[in-house]
């Protein structure tokens, strides 16, 4: 698992993946009538 010299691809992929996962969370919670952030 050599990732030497690949910090930029790692950082880019992290930003993209985190963004996509948060968007997925928001969509799936919204489909259940809820929001991603909890409201009383």
């Amino acid at each position, binding site marked *: *698992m*050599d*990732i*030497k*010299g*690949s*910090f930029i*691809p*790692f950082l880019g*992929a*992290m930003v993209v*993946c*985190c963004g996509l*996962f*948060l968007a*997925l*969370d928001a969509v*799936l*919670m919204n489909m*259940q009538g*809820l929001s991603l952030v*909890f409201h009383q």
Partner: protein
Amino acid sequence: MITGMKKPCLSDIRFLKTKVFLALLALAVIFGAITFPGFDQAGVMAAEQGAADQEVAADAAATATYAPAPKLTAADYPSIAGINSRVVVWIFAQLHLWFAAFVLAVPIFVFIIEVIGMKTRDKRYDDMAYEFIKVSITGYSLTAILGGGLAFSLILFYPHLFTYLSTIFSESMFYYALLFFAESAVLYIYYYGWHWLQGGFKKWVHLSLGLTLNAVGTTLMLLANAWLTFMMSPAGVDAAGVFSGDAWAAIHNFLWNPINIHRFVANIAYGGSIVGAYAAFKFLTANTPQLRAHYDWMGYNANFIAICALLPLPFAGYYLAAEIYAYSQQMGITLMGGIFAWLFIIQAVLIGTLFLSANYYLWCGMGRSDGAGRYTKYIKYIAIVLVAAFLVWFTPHTLVLTNEELKALGGPHHKILGPLGIMPAKNTAVNIMILFTALSFMFYRRANKVATVSWVNAGNAIQVALFTAGIANILLLGIYHGYFTNTVYKVAASIPQVLTTLIVIVGSITLDSFIYKGATEVGPLKWGRIPERAQYALFLLAVSFTWLMGLMGYIRSGIRQHWHVVDIMRDASPDAFTPTLGYAANVVSVAAILFMAMVMFVFWIAQVSGQKTLPTGYWKE
């Protein structure tokens, strides 16, 4: 001595008379239609009016024949030779289910392996598929024998329940029997015709038989599932248990499909683990390097099948439990928060054992490749994560303590470990275990390959990012929604958790396929180069699966508590109580030992069927 057997009562005789009357009426109508086809228009109208009247009368007659669910007393349950009827039915049902799961699952992956063999034209796959089905043939006979034992014990010990169920499911029980003939016929042609139906068109005929075998086998399972889910979530009957006559409503009850999905996936995982144990047994008894290599390869494939089905299995189980809650909150709370909750702690231990043994087998299997050294350094970290997740999974919410311990702790709830006892912590742990098992498998597949693409380091970095972001998201959903929101959010957050896990697994497999496109191999895999202790991991996998299925079978059946059919037909037998956890665990364990003894017999039969003795001088020349 049999006591309390039901005599034919007035309603039974009336029911029989009505049936005979309707049958004669139907014959008369058919006879009339055949004999007098040339009648006039007025005759047609009169006949239509008459038929409509008869239909209404038949409907009324049909409705009138269905009696409410019987209200029983202890005297209605025959006692035979002082035998505990519940334990007899319990053990017969469990043994039947274990074998049924095995013989229904084997044709599923045999079909897939046969397709792979046809696609690759590699005869090893065909030979392995044949050997798998050979093991299941003896199991098939035992399934039928145990099914007969279960049916007889239900009729003998619970006659009124069986009568009530067979009234509602009369059609499906009849079709079940017919399908059993079809299953036997197709299976025997499929197995005994294996070497006859080879090559070209004949091979396609054989593959079609395999598909038919799976269609019939799965239909059998769906029908049997309808009967037992009706007992948990009855449909097609009114509050008194009077059958509406709609058989489909009774079959398609609330819990039918959740059970169908869970059992279908679990059967494949279980079948894989049993043939894995067979391969391990053959590996340990093999006396040539060629045989060891063959059975090592077979064991690897069996473990692969078991892991593929094991990974989605917790999600199917979660869906089933959620549907049980949705159907009856009382049943759901009994299941996960009442007397049965401790059995789920034992379940967590057993499932943890499954994951650890499957991973251990993969790690040992990396020794088949000379290139595995690049990845073995990561195994210890995967093991640490798996064990940590395993510990979280089986941490109970409240502890069983002595009075002194309770005083010292200030109650049964541990302030540090207690929060790990709720479902969001378990969900998070399960998802992480599944991800790290997928990671183990990814390392196994990479062990013998050298990537040749120029962007291999960037590809690896993206893989690391995908796993890191996925795990971070699972932890966010588990911790934030699990501890800082209400129950609705907690349950809802489990869905994005599951999808995150699936996306990471599918994404990493896809990415790997691009990274290793045109990759070179370190060298040929050395099949058979695996420590013998890895074979015991395969045995552990099969035993843990068996024990686990026995435990969960008891839980599924036991949450009906004092009902034969929940809220419809009360269990008035002397055994209508929930036994202690120790007693239930002992019955399940005895049944598991009986099953293992039978499985050893099946393996032994498969072994001796290939042996020949040359009796020199016995037969005349």
